[in-house]
């Protein structure tokens, strides 16, 4: 493996980049980029190599930062990244998803924007916020945010988004109309008879299985779920996990049955690794069973938290896995999660980690 691997690390104090040497070893850190603005999510378009970093600054509002030269230089834009005059201001960008020439951005307060000119100009996908459920969406711990955007591998008309707390919504007509896709996911904080509502659940992460666009995985505030019908219905797959609570869910890019999680001990008792022993949990059978992957991760006094967008894969073989913590640590595995190595420390609180291979 000769191509270098880059990690895009969105933090509360700017974007950082880690670049590996050959063999995914010898990582070098660069940053902070984006004027040290809080960056909630950064991605690279695999077709062009352009890097996009989304965030917001309390003084100057939301922005998508753009680099076409591997992070050497940056521009920024928020043209059109706003609701209508008189509506509440957009505070920050929370998720980005490039897809065949389009770029989607999820924002706080929850809404979706689309750019057809590589992030220079944006237009509001207004049918989502026009959904009748919108007045009942409530802010979660991170705010009322649209934090995951899942595109279809071949059908531009299909799109799924995750809103905390509103739940999962999907469109099959390119964003002209939306419907909630939450049947079977639980809200433990509702009265018993209302624990499975049509919307309002607190989804934390949404991932599509490799080679099977009908299969989605969801880490929720209240449970872990799989859908085999594009989110129309969900079944619990949390049995065997140490906790029903966590943030990231990362699908293997070549195996529809393999998924990685970082469960936390619960929402009310610290939100750190159970027993303060860090582990990525893996299923290789679609969630029927789970195994912890601990080798190289700290197993004592590890009060670590990994947020919803802060774990990812690099698509290579064997698969590289990466996670970043709110305490500024970055761990890498180049053997499909079997062993882990700390490759950065002392970073600001990490919101997101994404990988790209072969930049430059």
């Amino acid at each position, binding site marked *: 493996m000769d191509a270098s691997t880059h990690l895009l690390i969105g933090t509360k104090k700017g974007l950082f980049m880690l670049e590996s040497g050959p063999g995914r070893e010898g990582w070098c850190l660069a940053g902070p980029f984006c*004027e040290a603005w809080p960056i909630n999510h950064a991605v690279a378009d695999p077709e062009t190599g352009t890097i996009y970093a989304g965030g917001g600054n*309390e*003084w*100057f*509002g939301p922005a998508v930062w753009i680099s076409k030269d591997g992070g050497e230089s940056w521009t*920024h*834009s*928020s*043209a059109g*990244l*706003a*609701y*209508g*005059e*008189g*509506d*509440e*201001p*957009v505070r920050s960008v929370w998720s980005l998803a490039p897809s065949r020439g389009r770029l989607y951005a999820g924002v706080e307060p929850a809404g979706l924007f689309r750019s057809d000119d590589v992030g220079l100009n944006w237009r509001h996908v207004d049918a989502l916020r026009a959904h009748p459920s919108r007045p009942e969406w409530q802010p979660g711990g991170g705010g009322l945010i649209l934090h995951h955007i899942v595109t279809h591998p071949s059908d531009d008309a299909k799109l799924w988004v995750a809103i905390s707390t509103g739940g999962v919504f999907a469109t099959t007509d390119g964003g002209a109309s939306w419907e909630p896709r939450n049947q079977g996911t639980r809200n433990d904080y509702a009265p018993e008879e209302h624990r499975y509502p049509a919307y309002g659940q607190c989804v934390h992460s949404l991932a599509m299985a490799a080679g099977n666009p009908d299969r989605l995985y969801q880490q929720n505030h209240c449970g872990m779920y799989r859908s085999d019908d594009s989110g129309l219905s969900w079944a619990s797959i949390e049995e065997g996990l140490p906790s029903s609570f966590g943030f990231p869910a990362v699908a293997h890019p070549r195996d529809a049955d393999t998924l990685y999680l970082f469960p936390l001990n619960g929402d009310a008792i610290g939100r750190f690794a159970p027993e303060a022993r860090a582990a990525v949990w893996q299923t290789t059978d679609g969630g029927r069973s789970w195994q912890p992957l601990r080798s190289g991760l700290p197993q004592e006094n590890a009060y670590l938290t990994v947020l919803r967008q802060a774990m990812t894969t690099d698509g290579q073989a064997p698969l590289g896995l990466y996670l970043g913590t709110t305490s500024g640590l970055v761990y890498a595995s180049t053997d499909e999660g079997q062993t882990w190595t700390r490759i950065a420390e002392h970073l600001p609180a990490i919101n997101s980690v994404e990988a790209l291979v072969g930049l430059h």
Partner: protein
Amino acid sequence: MACIDLLVPTPGRSDMISVALPEALTALFPGAPARIELDAATVDELLTELDRRWPGMRDRLRDTTPKIRKHINVFVDGRRATLATELPPGAAVLILPAMRG
């Protein structure tokens, strides 16, 4: 937040509006100076004129409420202003990020 330029704008000899921009803002717009003179009748017009010269600058200073952003202060001749504040000939406008944290 980078340090701001605390230079108080000096009213121009003409009727032009003298504007001081903070460093944290000009850092986002290559070529934007710390001080500029321009013509505008209100603060809102001033922001529009800034945006004409540096596309995107208006959105950094006002939101869709519409108001000057919550953590931005605009002073006209030493008094805190709103978007509707009128600019008398030769006014000195100071744009500052608010203190936070």
